[in-house]
């Protein structure tokens, strides 16, 4: 079996083990994406699988890694896809940023030694943070932060998002990295 089919389950004969495996992988991706985007999932309803399939195909073609940054890639793609019209209230970027921050905090192998991440959209000055737990009985905390300082204009939510992130052990970020 071509292992790329685990990323993008296309053109498989149904009722085979390969088909079942690839679609189990796709179903896992569905949950990895939509479980953290309740508003988007509710809005897309029964279109959610079709939208995801197109997104997975786009990621496969463009070699996009669906790691902890997966929701940022999904936001960027969805905002410019034909499916954007399915979202009457537009894209709630905060929901995508919160999902991304949460995924970062849950993957302890990323940015080892740092306890906090901030995700910003410099086009709107929206900012979301997440904190990794320091105790076994604590949960990852995701917080909406006050407007991030930026020289970018923030009066046009419709313009293209400019996502960046920074990590630290406080809320002071020394280096911003483009997402």
């Amino acid at each position: 079996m071509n292992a790329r089919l685990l990323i993008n389950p296309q053109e498989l004969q149904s009722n085979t083990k390969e088909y079942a495996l690839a679609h189990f992988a796709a179903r896992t991706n569905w949950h990895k994406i939509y479980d953290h985007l309740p508003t988007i999932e509710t809005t897309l309803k029964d279109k959610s699988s079709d939208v995801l399939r197109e997104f997975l195909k786009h990621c496969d073609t463009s070699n996009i890694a669906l790691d902890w940054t997966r929701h940022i890639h999904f936001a960027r793609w969805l905002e410019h896809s034909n499916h954007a019209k399915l979202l009457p209230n537009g894209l709630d970027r905060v929901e995508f940023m919160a999902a991304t921050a949460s995924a970062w905090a849950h993957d302890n192998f990323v940015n080892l030694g740092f306890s906090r991440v901030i995700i910003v959209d410099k086009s709107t000055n929206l900012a979301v943070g997440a904190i990794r737990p320091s105790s076994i009985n604590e949960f990852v905390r995701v917080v909406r932060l006050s407007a991030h300082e930026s020289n970018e204009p923030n009066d046009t939510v419709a313009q293209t998002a400019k996502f960046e992130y920074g990590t630290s052990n406080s809320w002071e970020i020394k280096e911003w990295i483009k997402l």
Partner: protein
Amino acid sequence: MLGVNLTSPTYLEQICDLTATGSADYVEILIDNFLSCDAEDLCDVLNGTPVAFHIMNSKFLERDISDLRDVAPIIKRFISVCNPIYVSDHAALFSVDGLPTPILRELDYAKDGEHVINRVATWQDLLETKVYLENFPSILSQESGQPEFFSEIISSTNCGLLFDASNALVAEMNTGTAVKRWETLLSHTSHFHSGGFSHIPEGDVWIDSHDQHLATSTRDYLQLLLGAQGIASSSTTLTIEFDHNIDFDLWKSDLQYVRTMAIRDHRSA
């Protein structure tokens, strides 16, 4: 010893209850999810309950060695403080062409041997401990067998086998790899896993889903494997895994069944 797995703080209270009431003897911690925590705090919260460490996302077969060197001291710190019964990891792949896959990918047993041997040796060196590798719940058949592959890895690296009985059954149902082929390796391991699995009718595939109680076939196989000695021996461990749709009554029922296996075995003899 009989164990239960802890993957997040969500069920910490109930897991602690399982050990406090004697249903389980130890907690197998998915240590990946707690690496940001304080190691001493982890021991304090579990109040002296023995622990084992299971590693899921080290990706030690694929991650850059320099990154493994960075993470190893953190895991070693937990090992040093918590003194786990065993440390286990997965002989599986997490990506293709550098892109993450949403589910684990099985090794190619005909081609991957040398790389796996090198990486297992490196990972054990970095962690300064024996690592027990869990067998894979195969879905697709391969010409080269998984039991024979594990045998080679174990003899070359002196790593351990964390034998997941339900994974072996899943592999047998999906690929025809008879569980009997693991027999010669089993005399060398004392650490076992089991969990619930589910069926996907389209394609007739069994998935290691950990979303239900142990199947009858798993219970029977465990009876065969461990019935005579049971889990009474302090050096033998069996972790019953439950990850999704957790039903604590069903979990307790599985634990109770396994707990009394040895008694039933003696009576039937």
